């Protein structure tokens, strides 16, 4: 991979979040304080994980950064621009928990989708889509349809699609949450390799402590009701990381540190009965509609 995979962007933090609050209201009444006083800076090329119990607003925060919802107050700058401007400039690649592939398109055509919308010419689209599918090791499946692939392969197509137009930041909302543990670990290594090859900045929401530690340069620990950042833990595991990293003592120490930070924040990762602000509600509705 010789050509740079991400567009060149100005220096300075990729994401600057300052004083962000988000409340969900019904009528005049504030129902949920999803986020309160969020400050966070993400430097170029960082891999940041947001972790916290259900209801801590981590998905909401990601969606605010991606301009899929707006904060009640506070500012979000992406590449020095307001989030909406960044979205219109196509600075984001998004990967959701479900791959959201179009059944009527082949794998290759799915990856071409954003390139068509960007108005790139056909040869560029084809070359780019194939390059991205090689990157996620699906070069042999160009002409397959999504329903012919396993869940992990579908999610890799979604990652290839998100990277296809060289976004300067990749937003991943529990991308491997629906996968089994073994597939998940393999996907972790995969996404790490892609991150190292592309140099893309990644903001990654997860429920999984091992996943956050294994992947990240920093883990942002959040607590629920109201959603706050309670701790930011530097992950100083050496790179390149591989499966052996998961068996080192430092890895276990960091997993423990994150777990204790979560516990100190009053969160329980098994606290599944709560609603993760509006985001999870919307997600649930969206998933219900598809089955």
């Amino acid at each position, binding site marked *: 991979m010789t050509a740079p995979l991400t567009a060149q962007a100005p220096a300075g933090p990729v994401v600057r979040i300052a004083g962000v609050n988000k409340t969900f209201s019904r009528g005049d009444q504030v129902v949920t304080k999803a986020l309160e006083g969020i400050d966070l800076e993400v430097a170029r090329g960082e891999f940041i994980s947001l972790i916290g119990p259900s209801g801590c607003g981590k998905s909401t925060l990601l969606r605010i950064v*991606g*301009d*899929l919802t707006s904060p009640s107050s506070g500012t979000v700058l992406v590449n020095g621009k307001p989030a909406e401007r960044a*979205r*219109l*400039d*196509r600075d*984001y*690649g*998004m990967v*959701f928990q*479900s791959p*959201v592939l*179009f*059944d*009527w398109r082949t794998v290759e055509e799915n990856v071409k*989708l*954003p390139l*068509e*919308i*960007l108005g790139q010419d056909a040869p560029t689209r084809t070359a780019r889509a194939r390059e991205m599918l090689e990157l996620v090791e699906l070069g*042999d*499946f160009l002409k*397959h*349809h999504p*329903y*012919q*692939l*396993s869940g992990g392969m579908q999610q890799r197509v979604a990652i290839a699609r998100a990277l296809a*137009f060289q976004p300067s930041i990749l*937003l991943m909302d529990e991308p491997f949450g629906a996968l089994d543990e073994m597939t998940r670990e393999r996907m972790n290594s995969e996404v790490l390799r892609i991150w190292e090859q592309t140099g893309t900045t990644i903001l990654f929401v997860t429920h999984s402590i091992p996943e956050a530690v294994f992947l990240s340069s920093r883990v942002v620990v959040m607590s629920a009701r109201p959603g706050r950042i309670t701790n930011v833990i530097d992950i100083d595991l050496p790179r390149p990381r591989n499966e052996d990293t998961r068996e080192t003592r430092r890895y276990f120490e960091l997993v423990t540190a994150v777990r204790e930070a979560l516990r100190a924040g009053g969160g329980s990762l098994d606290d599944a009965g709560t609603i993760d602000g509006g985001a999870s509600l919307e*997600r649930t*509705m*969206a*998933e219900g*509609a*598809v089955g």
Partner: protein
Amino acid sequence: MATAAATRGGRSAVRRDRPAAGRGRRALTWVLLFVAVLVVWEGLKFLGGTPWRAPGAVPGSGSPVLWNPPFRWPFVNDLNLPHVWNIGLAFLDPWQRGADRNVAQFLFDAALYTWKEAALGFLLGAGIGLVLATVFVHSRLLERALVPYVVASQTVPIIAIAPLITYAFGGSTAAVVVIATYLTFFPVTIAMIVGLRSFDPRALELTRSYAASRWDVYRKLRFPASLPYLFTALKIAATASIVGAIIGEGPGGISDGLGRVIITYNQYYITGPEKLWAAIIASGILGVAFFLLVRAAEVAVLRRRPGAAEG
């Protein structure tokens, strides 16, 4: 398609095959059902019909009685339910006294004529339905304001509206096309209001992240996602357009189509009920043929989607 795909790369998890054996069984089922209908039909006549005479015998011509049924049930007498072989033979009769062409040729030409009117109405109606549905899914206000009128338009019997349209268009084939359109746009509108909203709502967040325009969302997401709905509606519209064209030909006085033929043979029913039955069969075959044409297009367009082989 399925066999060709299966030989290419053995890796794919899912293959949708419809083996030839299954298709053969379907054809066999169809034939058996058809035979069963004929057997019931003639069985009833055997028990309670008019005394049986040789096929093609003119009533009252003195041809010998071959079988005298034990009962006399009016609804299965030769006037209400002619023998199937006499209906079959009616296709070979001259279409009217002294005519060169037989009923089969006559009906074929009439069916083709009616089909052209219906197909034109079908295309116009499908287009109008698609446009209306597209407007409605983008404007809740217009949807709420106008959909009741769309529904109301279909509750008025077409035989009440057909004469009005005929007056407006002066008894030309244009009137017939308009009536076919009138019956066609409705199923397409209603189905596409649902179809254009049937996409995965999460895909809207995806296209939002690409800053896609409404037009992009329409042509890349909404419309392709709606195609199964569109074809379901088009199959209904295909048969409805035939009905519309046949009905429209009556008041319009169009003499070349099935509608006129049905009216004519209706008037001569007492002397030759078989010909009306032949016209009814021709209308049925025309409707089925148009339906199958749309179905073939559906299979061709949707063959790569999961579950497309069904229906």
